[in-house]
């Protein structure tokens, strides 16, 4: 635990900066999604508020803050109010372990560009992603509505199933890096990113994180066309906004983790490391938006089939193959 005043101030500064960056980026990701989707569908998208529609997120926030905060009559009040926070907080917390640049040397001090480099960083992420399930499940259950309950149950089953293949696809990364520490994992990819050695694990991880952020083609918990909005159907105002922004924070954080585990984190030629990291994260965000504009939704049995009968066995075989590779060569 840091006792030095300077260290505490530094930690607070990093937290504030990261929080501000993540919230702003998530708000602008919403705008980016609307613009890119519109572009894919040959529309214009929101372009009225400010130049090129750039002030749209601000307008959205004002709208959501001034809307009525509805709580359905039959809802379980406490859990109904708690659920949006349970959905957004784990996503924000995960940012604490992601390194977004090499350590800086400032005033003769070594400042890592990461809030905390836990020696169990990878497991910390898995723990928080397993906690994120509660937001969906409790939100769906506490609303006391058929659609929300169905969405909540679907979300629960989907998140549990894909967490397994996601965790298993990360085992080869740990085997190659010999560490759970994200700083070490990035350092191990200084010359060659792990996607070169582990294309299969990367593919499994990519599909699993798409399912973890409940994005198309895995958006069954929300499924607008059949469940209205699924687990957050009853929410209004900023509570709905928290679910919504939580989803976009999740995209950013999972994109950041995918970049850290497979694309070499902040490593890259010519450009400054932090810029490389941001580019990789934004590339993942763009990929998710692109997928939403392109793919249809899976059926529920297809979703479960893909998770349990395809991705999980493949990830297990991949672990065995990686182990054999490391032992023999």
């Amino acid at each position, binding site marked *: 635990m840091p006792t030095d005043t300077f260290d505490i101030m530094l930690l607070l500064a990093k937290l504030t900066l990261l929080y501000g960056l993540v919230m702003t980026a998530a708000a602008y990701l919403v705008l980016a999604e609307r613009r890119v989707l519109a572009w894919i569908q040959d529309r214009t998208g929101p372009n009225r508020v400010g130049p090129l529609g750039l002030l749209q997120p601000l307008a959205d926030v004002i709208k959501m803050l001034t809307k009525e905060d509805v709580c359905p009559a039959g809802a379980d009040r406490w859990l109904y109010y708690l659920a949006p926070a349970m959905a957004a907080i784990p996503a924000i917390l995960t940012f604490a372990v992601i390194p977004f640049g090499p350590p800086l040397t400032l005033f003769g001090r070594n400042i890592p560009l990461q809030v905390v480099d836990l020696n169990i960083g990878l*497991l*910390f992420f898995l*723990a928080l992603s397993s906690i994120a399930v509660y937001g969906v499940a*409790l939100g769906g259950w506490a609303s006391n509505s058929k659609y929300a309950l169905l969405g909540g149950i679907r979300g*629960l089953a989907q998140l549990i199933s894909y*967490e397994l293949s996601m965790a298993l696809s990360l085992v080869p990364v740990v085997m190659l890096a010999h560490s759970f520490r994200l700083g070490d994992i990035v350092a191990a990819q200084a010359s060659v990113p792990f996607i070169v050695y582990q294309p299969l694990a990367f593919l499994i991880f990519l599909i699993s994180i798409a399912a973890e952020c409940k994005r198309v083609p895995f958006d069954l918990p929300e499924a607008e066309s059949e469940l209205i909005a699924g687990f957050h159907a009853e929410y209004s105002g900023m509570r709905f906004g928290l679910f919504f922004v939580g989803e976009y924070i999740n995209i950013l954080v999972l994109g950041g983790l995918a970049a850290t585990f497979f694309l070499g984190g902040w490593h890259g030629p010519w450009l400054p490391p932090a810029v490389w990291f941001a580019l990789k994260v934004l590339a993942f965000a763009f990929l998710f938006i692109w997928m939403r504009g392109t793919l249809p939704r899976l059926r529920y049995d297809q979703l479960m089939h893909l998770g349990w009968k395809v991705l999980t066995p493949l990830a297990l075989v991949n672990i065995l193959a990686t182990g054999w590779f490391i032992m023999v060569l």
Partner: protein
Amino acid sequence: MEQIVFYILAAVVVIATLFAVTERHPVHAIVYLATSFFGLAVIFYLLLAPLAAVFEVIIYAGAIMVLFLFVIMMLDLGHPEKVKRPAFRDWWPAVVLSLLILASFAVLAGMPFFGPPAAAAQIDIRGFAAVLFRNYGVAVEIISLQLLFALVGALYLGRRR
């Protein structure tokens, strides 16, 4: 500083567990129990055991409690909060067991001190894994076989006739 945090967390854990036991609504009880697991995880972290802390959250709060929640959400429980409290004949075994635990604690507390506790030492994941799989490898295998039996049993029960 660590002591203050510890006492706050310990209070949270005890209170949350008490609520988890007395709460009549199963979903609320699960939320209380998950809170208690969280507090316990942070206590493990304070004791320089981050691995135990993370496993506490991943396995207990993230997997087991979530599965309970899943089952409860699938069942239509009606109005569990209107159910009467269980009669004494339903919970006397719990009382007997807790009295046993209390008694053994009292006996231990009354015994002469067996030396200062070992200094807290942080063990890395590599060391933990080496001890677990070298010294207790057979036990780990037996436990995993037991899980396999449960899996096969579930498959047998769930197969289509």
